[in-house]
């Protein structure tokens, strides 16, 4: 699919320096995001999915954080080289981000109306009248009933699902080209999650938005993403179009993850396959394939050399030395 590439990340490495040692949170990831595309970043806790996004937007405190290497090209400019002032122009206006807990992003002592209009006035240069009208439009767009009245309410007067809608409204208020969503529905009930996902799909079509959706939930990903990056221990281990990933997973970790999921739409046919061992110790500099200690297909080479991402099918790459069908080296 020939899309314009909006964001190109190359070899990003992020570390944290703590009294107990250095945490190797992100270890050289590269990917691209095309216009109008939805990229899902999937992984369990500690895999680096959130940290990698925060690094791009300059939201990692330095110190203790450190962006050891990498570039993130957005419209020809490297976000990682920008000053705070320049990043502030990009954040919110061109690349918006929404989080798992809207309460941390919303100011509890200001009304929702004030918070939205402030952003509109600052970034879009509207006057108060225009900003107010636009704020009402935005709340209606995300499906909040009695939008005009609700502008006078405070964040705590909204339910979890409503707050997340407000966050989406605020994020979209400046017509960004990219929306980064960090586990926005993880804390929500299943029916509310479905509402939000529905909303996001509708808005995506309306506005032509490119999205990066970070989650651990492989179910949500299946319904939302165009492409998927699977992360483990700060590496991208598999990258594929969504249909390919579920039909034909090629990395042992992805395979194991899918085998560990129960299904709501099928009868139980066997025990869940659990992954033996424990998540890796991020305090140790990665050497070899990070998944090697827990992998059932491991060979000698896996422990010695870190596999790079290499293609296995069109648009489909894995970081693995082994072919899972044959068990032999690739």
């Amino acid at each position: 699919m020939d899309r314009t590439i909006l964001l190109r990340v190359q070899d990003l490495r992020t570390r944290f320096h703590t009294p107990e040692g250095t945490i190797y949170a992100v270890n050289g990831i590269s990917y691209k995001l095309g216009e109008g595309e939805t990229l899902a970043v999937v992984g369990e806790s500690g895999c680096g999915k959130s940290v990698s996004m925060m690094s791009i937007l300059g939201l990692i405190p330095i110190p203790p954080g450190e962006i050891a290497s990498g570039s993130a090209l957005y419209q020809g400019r490297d976000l990682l080289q920008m000053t705070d002032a320049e990043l502030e122009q990009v954040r919110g206006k061109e690349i918006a981000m929404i989080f798992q807990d809207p309460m941390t992003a919303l100011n509890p002592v200001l009304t929702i109306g004030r918070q939205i209009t402030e952003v509109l006035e600052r970034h879009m240069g509207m006057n108060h009248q225009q900003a107010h009208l636009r704020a009402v439009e935005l709340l209606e767009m995300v499906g909040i009933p009695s939008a005009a009245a609700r502008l006078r309410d405070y964040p705590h007067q909204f339910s979890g699902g409503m707050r997340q809608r407000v966050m989406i409204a605020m994020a979209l208020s400046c017509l960004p080209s990219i929306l980064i969503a960090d586990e926005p529905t993880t804390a929500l009930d299943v029916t509310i999650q479905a509402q939000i996902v529905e909303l996001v799909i509708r808005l995506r079509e309306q506005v032509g938005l490119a999205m990066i959706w970070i989650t651990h939930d492989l179910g949500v990903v299946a319904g939302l993403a165009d492409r998927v990056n699977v992360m483990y221990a700060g590496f991208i281990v598999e990258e594929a179009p969504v249909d390919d990933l579920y039909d034909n997973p090629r990395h042992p970790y992805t395979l194991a993850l899918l085998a560990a999921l129960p299904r709501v739409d099928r009868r139980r046919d066997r025990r869940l396959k659990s992954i033996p061992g424990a998540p890796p110790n991020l305090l140790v500099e990665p050497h070899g394939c990070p998944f090697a200690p827990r992998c059932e297909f491991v060979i000698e080479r896996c422990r010695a050399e870190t596999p790079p991402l290499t293609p296995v099918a069109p648009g489909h790459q894995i970081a693995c030395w082994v072919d899972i069908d044959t068990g032999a080296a690739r």
Partner: protein
Amino acid sequence: MSVTDEAIAIAPRFAADELEAPPLTLRQLTWRRFRRHKMAMFGTMMLVLLIFYSFAGALFFTEDYANLTDTSLRLQPPSREHPFGTDTVGRDILARTIYGGQISLLIGLTAMLVEVIVGVLIGAIAGYYGGWLDALLMRFTEAVFVIPSIFLLIVMAKTFGTEIPDLSLLGRTFSGSVIVVVLIIGLTSWMYLARIVRAQFISLKEREFILAARATGTPAWQIIWGHILPNTMAPIIVSATLSIAAAILSESYISFLGMGVQPPTATWGNMLQTASSDFTKIQNAPWFWVFPGLLIVLTVLSINFVGDGLRDALDPRSRAA
């Protein structure tokens, strides 16, 4: 929690299945943080010196010497035989500060114990059981709280002051009024701690590990003593430390007013009292009140520094190690 905090928290330190050396225990972590607090370390050193002064100093002077009156030597300024001078009846002030220090420090410690026992008991019961028992205990606490403490001290001192005979303990004889003073101070200062302990109990009572203990069938007193109390130690320790200083000051107040420890037993507080009985003495014989006063100030300050250091070191939210 910010993403950074989360990233740092989630990174597993080691897999407990591998039996490497465990990371620092809570106690070691607390000590490390305490060590960094310069004022607290200074306070600790001062305190150690003061305790050494009062207890090892007794090796140089006998108690009899401290109580030895010799009116021919009265009101002498500091000299080589009497480095702190002598008082109105010719007693050596240096020796008296040593023995007085023992009593003052002892009073501080034991009053703190009374206060902690009463405060924790009331706070724990009120916090754990709630309901009418809580309401009753708290109204009582508030009532005692509201009465000015000095007034209480004076009234209790007057009522019970002279009832108890002298006692001997650890090779020393001292006036029974010491016990009275300890009880009075302890029983008029427990309220603050009771409130803190109650608040802690109320919040901890709903934690899941307490529900688990109840589901196991653990009896209430075991839950209070074994589960909740150990998790309340931080505010209790800090409060107890600071209350030693407060007790020493309270003792000075009531002794200064003549209603505390009775002579000949010396305390820093009642030494101040003797000094103030005549205004000319304050002016002309400053060595009377300067030395005991200085010792009180140094002790109270050191304890407060230590208390501050402990409060910071025990705060679980502080992530610096």
